[in-house]
């Protein structure tokens, strides 16, 4: 695609930022080796260099397929992803030192596998950018995606626990040594479906019938969809035993609904329904137990993790407490990469990676990491603001918001802010599903941000894509009134 003269694509800035991110990742690797081996090996730069090759390859794909895409997204995600690989490799190093084995190879161990998964995830992201030249084409498969999304959400719930349960949360499909978290992909599919559905129904849903306390409330019969999704997420809460996932799906739906209709009432209804439902589940868990017991358990553990009854109980607060102790031990500045003892924290490579890293990089490091996540989310929302079509707005807004919400749910859980749930930390936790799904999410944001930042004279992205919508409609006169 030709660049319009006199416009800025931001691609060179992206490359520069990427270089900076990779230097940081290499420095992290060097510090880890210095702390673990008391020396820096001559090969410390290899993982960072391999990652650099992968990210630069993605950068080149973006140059050719989404020239005007947001230049901040890839470097920021690359930094988080690279640090994740670095930390997982650090765990491998500690393990091999303890077992008196030689240093693991670049693709060996959990860190090596994560590196390989990064390659796969980036290939997927590149394929998405190459295939989907216009984000609006996705809307054609909205109903299929909606069905796929719901099926993906439901699979772990209907599977027996032995095939789907990890640490009390039924979020997985386990096949031998290999396991995937279908929910990670489901959120992508569901966002697309919600966006399509709401674009079509927004006029009806924003019709107000009753005004209570200065807020317009929808008609009873229009509550159908929101109640459906509410029930769906409560089922998730009960049968997949996971508050975080339920919160994620429901929050995703309510926010897209709110963005589509601009009615605050939906937000209020959503919040009341969700927290009402959660409280109800807590009460039911306390009184009748059964399927609600797991949630009640997590809630009591969250309320007082340091109580010895909670701490010593099997499946109690041991994990949470060890995570908190790790974070506290790190303090403001941390022990330094490679100098902490993340081995004390169970599941430190998955759900608790943030606590493990927190011990070593301290409050300052974690705050920087938080800012990186915030940057990704806000750049995603910015793409939503800039893009001209409603579908694009809802998809970008929904995806960015979901990512932010997921970070909040898992980090809030680990730091004791909300009850702990089994979410992965995007781009950090070990595991292919999470990495692939989140890189697909980023690819979608790149695609939409390209459309949003493309100068009007460059022609709509639709020209090169395959949308059946006549592009002239969007290009010429505005067909949709966009409120400032």
């Amino acid at each position: 695609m030709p660049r319009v003269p006199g416009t800025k694509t931001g691609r060179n800035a992206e490359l520069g930022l990427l270089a900076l991110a990779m230097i940081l990742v290499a420095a992290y690797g060097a510090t880890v080796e210095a702390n673990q081996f008391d020396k820096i090996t001559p090969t410390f730069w290899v993982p960072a260099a391999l990652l650099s090759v992968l990210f630069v390859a993605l950068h080149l794909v973006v140059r050719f397929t989404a020239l005007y895409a947001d230049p901040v997204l890839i470097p920021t995600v690359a930094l988080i992803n690279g640090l994740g690989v670095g930390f997982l490799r650090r765990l491998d190093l500690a393990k091999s030192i303890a077992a008196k084995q030689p240093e693991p190879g670049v693709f060996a161990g959990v860190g090596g596998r994560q590196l390989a998964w990064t390659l796969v995830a980036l290939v997927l992201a590149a394929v998405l950018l190459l295939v989907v030249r216009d984000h609006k084409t996705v809307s054609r498969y909205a109903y299929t995606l909606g069905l796929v999304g719901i099926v993906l959400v439901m699979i772990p719930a209907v599977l027996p626990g032995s095939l789907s349960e990890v640490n009390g949360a039924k979020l997985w499909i386990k096949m031998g040594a290999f396991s995937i978290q279908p929910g990670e992909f489901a959120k992508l599919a569901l966002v697309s479906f919600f966006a399509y559905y709401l674009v079509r129904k927004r006029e009806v849903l924003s019709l107000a019938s009753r005004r209570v306390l200065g807020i317009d409330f929808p008609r009873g019969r229009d509550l159908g969809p929101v109640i459906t999704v509410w029930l769906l997420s409560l089922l998730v809460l009960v049968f997949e035993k996971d508050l975080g996932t339920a919160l994620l799906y429901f929050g995703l739906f309510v926010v897209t609904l709110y963005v589509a209709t601009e009615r605050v009432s939906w937000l209020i209804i959503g919040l009341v329904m969700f927290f009402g439902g959660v409280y109800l589940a807590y009460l039911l868990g306390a009184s009748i137990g059964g399927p609600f017991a797991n949630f009640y358990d997590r809630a009591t553990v969250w309320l007082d993790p340091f109580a010895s009854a909670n701490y010593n109980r099997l499946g109690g607060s041991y994990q949470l407490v060890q995570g908190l102790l790790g974070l506290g031990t790190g303090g403001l500045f941390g022990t330094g990469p490679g100098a902490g003892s993340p081995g004390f924290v169970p599941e430190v490579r998955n759900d608790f990676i943030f606590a493990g890293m927190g011990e070593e990089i301290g409050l300052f490091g974690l705050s920087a990491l938080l800012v990186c996540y915030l940057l990704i989310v806000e750049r995603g929302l910015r793409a939503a603001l800039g893009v001209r079509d409603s579908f694009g707005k809802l998809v970008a807004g929904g995806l960015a918001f979901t990512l932010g919400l997921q970070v909040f749910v898992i980090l809030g859980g680990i730091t004791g802010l909300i009850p702990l749930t089994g979410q992965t930390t995007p781009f950090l936790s070990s595991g292919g599903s999470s990495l692939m799904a989140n890189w697909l999410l980023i690819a979608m944001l790149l695609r939409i941000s390209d459309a949003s930042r493309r100068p009007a004279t460059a022609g709509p992205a639709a020209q090169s894509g395959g949308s059946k919508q006549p592009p002239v409609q969007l290009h010429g006169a505005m067909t949709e009134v966009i409120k400032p």
Partner: protein
Amino acid sequence: MNAPLRKAGVVILVLFGLLFANLNWVQGYKADAYRTSDYNGRVRVAEYEVPRGVIEAAGVPLARNKLTDDTLKYLRQYPGGQVYAPIVGYKPVNIAEVGIERSENEFLSGASDKLFADRVSAMFTGDKAGGGNVVLSIKPKAQETAWKQLTNNEGNAKKGSAVAIDPRTGAIQALASFPSYDPNPLANHDTKAAAAAYEKLNADKDKPLLNRALSETYPPGSTFKVIISAAALQNGYKQSTDIPAGSSYTAPGSGSPIRNSGDQSCPGEQVTLKEALTDSCNTGYARLGVELGGEKVKKAAQDWGFEQTDLTVGDLEGSGLPVAASHTGEIKNPDGSIDQAGLAQSSIGQKDVRMTTMQGALIAAAVANGGKQMRPYLVQQLLSPDRRPIYNASPQTLRTPVNSQVAGDLREMMVSVVENGTGKRAKISGFEVGGKTGTAQNATGADNHGWFIGFAYNDKGEAVSAVCVMLENVPDGGASAEAARISGLIMKAAAGQGGD
């Protein structure tokens, strides 16, 4: 749709703000509490990162460290096993220490203020300063003898204890408690295995974890007659003073009659004080106690260390193993008047009189040291990690129950017990040995306890050792004679002769 999108952005901002605020709480405000939390395994790893100080006695290591491949770098080992367990104790991974490991924990771990200079110099050299070393006053030969003789006692007693003290300084030469336990499994890095080992010992009905020399009190029987003798000598009696005795005595105010243990001992109506002690004359001492009165008896016992609740044996700066208080009991009727029958019984160490083995040794030691009771201690020296002396025990007088003249009389009387009386089996060649036996009735139907308290002077006239041996419920009779025999052997070993 842009306005709600912006608001969604604000929501995310607020959520991240909450995360940030909470992180400040966890990593800032609570950081110190979390860093040092009992649940935090890093505390333990750091503790085991440097070698803990060695506990030793006369060059024999009693607690030392072995470098391991575990996360916890050093494993604590107790080569002395159950022989030294009642003294050294043990250091478990995740619960409180016991014994000297507990009382000298600060020094052993290196956290003590006394080691401040060592920590500073270690900071400059880059080495990790270890903990300081503790040298005990224990004489390994005496300790081994005490353990061996207690466990193989000829009276078939299943429980007992022994304490030997240097009367001149208060340095504890031996402190054994039987049955005992092996502390090594309790220091296991596998905390579950350690807890299981502890549970097993704790559930044992013979209570091997109990330190019988320091924390248990028993009726002292006739050993208490030394205190009554002292009270008499301080109240104008002489060794040669005749006291009323007889084969049977019933105290005023009824009670069952007190008899002598054998018909041959003090059958006469009158015996001298010295003869009464030599033959352990019950009727004589019961009447003597009643004659002196309850207040004087209780006061005398207190003068020798009864009723002291805060005595510890460790270093002389206050930290050590607690010693249970010995008691005389109230010896009073419900209306507050002196219970004469009870007083008669108490005067021969029965009724409510209770004594620790340590207290028994302290009595003998005070007699041997001319009336000056030295404060007992276990820690002879504290050495820095590079074995520079930091503390040396400087003996302290704990109390002076009697003047040297009374002490001299008691010494002669107690020597007579061993030469001519009930304590003959304590005799050791080359030493002047004195002492007092005790056979104490306890629960109805139970076998008697056997006691011996005594001391030994070498040929230069130096009081080299004072001892107390206590055998619980000796089935085979001759309880106190067996205690006397063991006492002699321990003192001989403590004086540097024999052993075994």
